[in-house]
């Protein structure tokens, strides 16, 4: 059952900051008490390293840590051996690109889009420099959605990877991932999906979508910081070398330099992991599954539409993604620099993000460098939207400067 009032009681940040309207959920999210308790439990009742000790406590920590892998597998509909815990989404994407670099060569093509976050572009740019691969941008419409017909026309045997965000981080547009994935597979290419802005908000079934790789971040879905999830089909994970080498990921090595790696996914988890973060993330996934990802998705759609309908009539607001059903409300107040407008909203205790949101080539599409992004999560309310809209109505240069007096 989706009981908003009960849900809000679960979040200490909401209780401790009744004055605040937090609409920066695309950046990070608040944590429910069950997640905080789980992290605290590690510190107060179950502290030990993982996969190393021979004593009962250490075995208990192993159990908690590995249990999260099983929970995430249930969340994504995959096998636990296909889930690796790295430290953030960015690192996961870097791991995939590094791993695939062993299979790519000069002239190979990677297809992506101008709406991508830096973490899904810069690692590929480096491969372009190092290997001479080609990066091509899939044609997109005004909302940043890939045009399937145009994508088909770009496909060839040289295309080895389609790397795309499932939901783009600035405009929140949903890409036709399933169709693109089918297309990629027809040509023997891999589908790499950045799920940072989709997995927290909707059911993502990696089997149903037939994704090759998926990455996302714990902290954007009620979990602790410092945990990124790398999903890969097992046979693909087995064919990409780990980015980071060291403790915990090798079975044995010899002075002649030969190294036997541990099995996947452990080989991607060199060094002591963020143990309490991973354990806490397990609690976050269970919390979300208990509410139900479909329930969360439906409520967010309703809330977003309520917000959008109030923004559309405002003459002084340039609204960049009015037609999307989900994702952030992305806008500017005409003639007001995004940061000034966000500063004014901040003075009214409304937390939004201004800037280019790490998607620095998106301006080629929407014609502006900086926007304001109000990103919602399932614990936000219509009352909060009302408060935000009232403040947005008052945005002007005069009021933005007035904040300082």
């Amino acid at each position, binding site marked *: 059952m989706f009981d908003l009032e009960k849900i809000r009681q679960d979040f200490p940040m909401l209780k401790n900051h009744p004055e605040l309207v937090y609409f920066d959920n695309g950046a990070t999210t608040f944590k429910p008490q069950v997640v905080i308790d789980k992290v605290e439990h590690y510190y107060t009742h179950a502290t030990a390293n993982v996969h190393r000790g021979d004593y009962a406590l250490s075995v208990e920590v192993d159990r908690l840590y590995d249990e999260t892998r099983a929970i995430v597998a249930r969340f994504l509909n995959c096998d636990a051996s296909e889930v690796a815990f790295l430290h953030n989404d960015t690192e996961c994407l870097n791991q995939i690109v590094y791993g695939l670099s062993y299979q790519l060569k000069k002239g190979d093509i990677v297809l992506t889009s101008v709406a991508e976050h830096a973490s899904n572009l810069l690692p590929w740019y480096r491969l372009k420099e190092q290997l001479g691969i080609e990066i091509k941008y899939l044609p997109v419409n005004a909302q940043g959605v890939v045009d399937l017909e145009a994508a088909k026309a770009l496909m060839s045997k040289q295309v080895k990877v389609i790397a795309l965000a499932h939901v783009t981080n600035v405009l929140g547009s949903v890409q036709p991932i399933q169709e693109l994935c089918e297309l990629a597979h027809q040509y023997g290419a891999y589908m790499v999906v950045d799920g940072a802005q989709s997995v927290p908000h909707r059911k993502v079934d990696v089997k149903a979508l037939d994704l090759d790789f998926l990455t996302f971040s714990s902290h954007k879905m009620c979990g602790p910081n410092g945990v990124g999830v790398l999903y890969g089909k097992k046979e693909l994970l087995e064919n990409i070398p780990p980015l980071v080498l060291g403790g915990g990921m090798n079975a044995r090595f010899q002075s002649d330099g030969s190294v036997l790696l541990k099995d996947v996914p452990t080989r991607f988890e060199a060094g002591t992991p963020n143990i309490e973060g991973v354990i806490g993330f397990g609690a976050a996934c269970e919390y979300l599954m208990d509410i139900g990802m479909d329930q969360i998705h439906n409520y967010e759609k309703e809330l977003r539409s309520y917000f959008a309908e109030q923004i559309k009539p405002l003459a002084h607001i340039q609204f960049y993604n009015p037609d999307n059903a989900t994702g952030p409300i992305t806008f500017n107040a005409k003639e007001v620099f995004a*940061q000034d407008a966000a*500063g004014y909203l901040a003075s009214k205790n409304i937390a939004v993000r201004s800037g280019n949101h790490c998607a*620095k080539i998106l301006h080629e599409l929407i014609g502006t460098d900086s926007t304001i992004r109000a990103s919602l999560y399932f614990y936000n309310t219509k009352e909060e939207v009302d408060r935000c809209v009232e403040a947005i109505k008052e945005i002007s240069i*005069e009021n*933005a*400067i*007035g904040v*300082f007096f």
Partner: protein
Amino acid sequence: MTDTKDLLTNPDILRELIMDHYQYPHHHTLIEDDSYLKKHMASDSCIDDITVQAKIEEGILKDIRFDGVACTISTASTSMMTDLLRGKTIAEAKEIIKQYDLMLDGKEYDADVLEEAVAMQNVYKQANRIRCALIGWNAIKGLIEESEK
């Protein structure tokens, strides 16, 4: 003099000053001239992107110019800086910059030497905007250092 001082403590006037400098920034064009030192300030934040130019000769800041995309506070504070430091000796400029930095740090400062730039007096209360008020000033600081090498 007393009159000016009074004006510069009136919040309405200070607000107007920021507005004017934002909408009609002073010395807001760059020129092609190799005798100018130039600093591009874009790496500190992904939002503001300004370039400051200065002609520093015989220990005097003979000209300062800037251009770019930035918020009200960045634009107005840089515009005020160009007014204030043009024609000053390096030593004078350094003293003014020092007082400005003290103001942005929330410390005691000499308001007299800052003239219109006292409009930035409350920016230190908004931690996320301090960087905006410093961007142009840090640029000129860098250019002065460069001129002394």
